């Protein structure tokens, strides 16, 4: 048992980014948020590799079964590899079982039953979260919906980032009347409720082949306003600061000034805002889908799943509760991560 004490630690210079990461890793809520978010993303995108159920495959006898329902494989020929049918325990006890109460339990315990020449056994593939009313596996649908919801979130955020940064930096850099005009336009667009604008855009694009693409273009086209304001504010602030002037005076070339001196200073607020924008965009997409204006079947997003669940909650409450839980957990984790980043990167909260 020896305790090692390092007496001489080399003083390492820490970059602001390492500093920020250190601060972030101290923030427990933000780290949990980061972890949950990464797990959610990898589950959604990697699920086709390991999850046995397909989000589109319908087992007709499995309409809206609750979570953890056991599936029973039916074989008319005991030697067959593929089962002839899979049925629910209810069907089994209604149609086949000689002794309904005990037979189901015996199958649940792994026994193989032979009733009048038909072989029944527990299926290894259980529907973890049950099935929807069309007999599709709910978990698989949630993963599929997550891929679309998260994908729309990322891409729309990227689009709004692109527009917002470009617009804001031009406005801030050029200044003068151009700046005043460009920002007045942003003010006007701000006065409109976002949802109305997006709904109008959705109406314009509805029914086209690339609807998904258009959804995030539409959302990105609306959500860039705040980004533009933030970037403009930063650029205006930085433009006149001494270190930029000093760089200019010492003959640093323009693109180096922009990349090395301006960009890192804008990056902090942009990263924070983008992190908070992803859940906001997912919320908007889901709201649209909930209203029937967003993702159309057979595609699913968390919004359409919640919509379907809300329609059937009287009878099958888990169809609402489970997707809502997935969605809320993701939103929470992103918001906590964004708040943590805001503190870590020391960004003053924006005025929106």
């Amino acid at each position, binding site marked *: 048992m020896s305790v090692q004490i390092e007496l001489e630690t080399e003083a390492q210079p820490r970059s602001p980014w390492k500093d920020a990461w250190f601060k972030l890793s101290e923030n427990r809520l933000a780290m949990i948020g980061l972890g949950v978010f990464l797990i959610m993303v990898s589950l959604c995108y990697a699920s086709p590799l390991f999850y046995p159920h397909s989000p589109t495959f319908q087992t007709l006898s499995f309409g809206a079964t609750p979570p953890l329902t056991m599936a029973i494989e039916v074989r008319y020929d005991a030697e067959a590899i593929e089962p002839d049918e899979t049925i629910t325990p209810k069907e089994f006890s209604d149609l086949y079982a000689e002794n309904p109460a005990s037979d189901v339990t015996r199958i649940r315990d792994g026994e193989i039953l032979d009733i009048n020449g038909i072989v029944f056994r527990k299926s290894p593939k259980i529907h973890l979260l049950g099935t929807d009313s069309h007999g599709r596996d709910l978990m698989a649908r949630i993963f599929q919906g997550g891929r679309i919801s998260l994908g729309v979130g990322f891409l729309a955020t990227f689009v709004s980032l692109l527009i917002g940064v470009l617009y804001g930096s031009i406005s801030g850099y050029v200044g003068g009347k151009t700046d005043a005009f460009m920002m007045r336009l942003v003010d006007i667009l701000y*006065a409109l*409720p976002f949802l109305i604008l997006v*709904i*109008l855009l959705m109406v314009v694009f509805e029914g086209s082949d690339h609807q998904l693409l258009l959804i995030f273009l539409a959302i990105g086209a609306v959500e860039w306003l705040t980004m533009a304001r933030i970037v403009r504010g930063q650029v205006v602030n930085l433009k006149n600061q001494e270190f930029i002037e000093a760089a200019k005076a010492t003959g640093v070339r323009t693109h180096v000034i922009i990349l090395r001196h301006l960009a890192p200073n804008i990056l902090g607020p942009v990263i924070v805002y983008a992190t908070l924008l992803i859940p906001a965009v997912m919320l908007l997409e889901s*709201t649209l889908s909930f209203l029937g204006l967003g993702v159309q079947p057979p595609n699913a997003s968390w919004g359409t799943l919640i919509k379907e669940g809300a329609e059937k*909650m009287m009878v099958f409450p888990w169809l609402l509760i489970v997707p809502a839980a997935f969605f809320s957990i993701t939103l929470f984790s992103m918001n906590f991560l964004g708040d943590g980043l805001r503190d870590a990167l020391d960004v003053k909260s924006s005025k929106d």
Partner: protein
Amino acid sequence: MLRFILIRLGQAIPILLAIYTITFFMVRAAPGGPFSQERKVAPHILEQQMEYYGFNDPTYIQYFRTLWQHISFDFPPLTSYPGLTSKDIILDTFPVSLELGILAMFVAIAIGLPVGILAAAKKNSLLDYAPMSFAMIGICLPTFVIGPLLALLLGVWLGWLNISGWFSWSDRILPALTLGLFYAAYIARLTRGGMLEALNMDYIRSARAKGASERAVVLVHALRGGIMPVISFFGPALAGLISGSFVVETIFQVPGLGRHFIQAALSRDHSLILSTVLFYAALIIIANMVVDIAQVMLNPKLRYG
């Protein structure tokens, strides 16, 4: 003050015109006209309908005609509600949305304001942390998750309320609560922030020094300043209430304007979309103006500054 109002009204005209123009061309650009989704009709009848609704005229004539119709409040007949005009729909359904909005705002203030004041007065205690954590949840959870879950809990499992409809007073509870909870959370946070700032001011120290009770300090002296962020929030809140009403009215089958706007968008009723957007825009501009005036009246610094 009159000058201020007149300038703001003057600014509203080009904004409304711009919104009209954008909306007009956006709905025109949409694929599929108002008749394309319905069942197939005979070509000559379709032709007759197109003529009746004026879709055969050149676009610029339609643009100015519709503009004039909106200025003169003489609205064209609607394609999705034959025989009615946008005015009928708005007059018929907006009061419902208004009632919902007022009730939701009442819920928001009744919950948010006391919670925020209490949290600020008892800073860093359980009375601060617990409600503020709830507020965070309220802000993160979307309306269309809270709504159905509340309906499931209060309507289906406990059986206290109807889960949809708009008939008796008890039908108002779920929609108003759903719409109001988000704002309650937001107002609680804003109030707490504003109150904390106000409680640090010198005039609060003076009030304490002259012997005012803690109650009077918080509720009389600090509240006046602390409530300012909440007042300036009412402008943006209205835009949010409108968006929220789309969702809440759809969830609970409330016959308000929000649901009709969504229906109009789904059925491509050009004039109803246009009129509703303009109506909402005018509403928001007026509300923002009222908020600005209220701020000037409440804050002497702005009045004389």
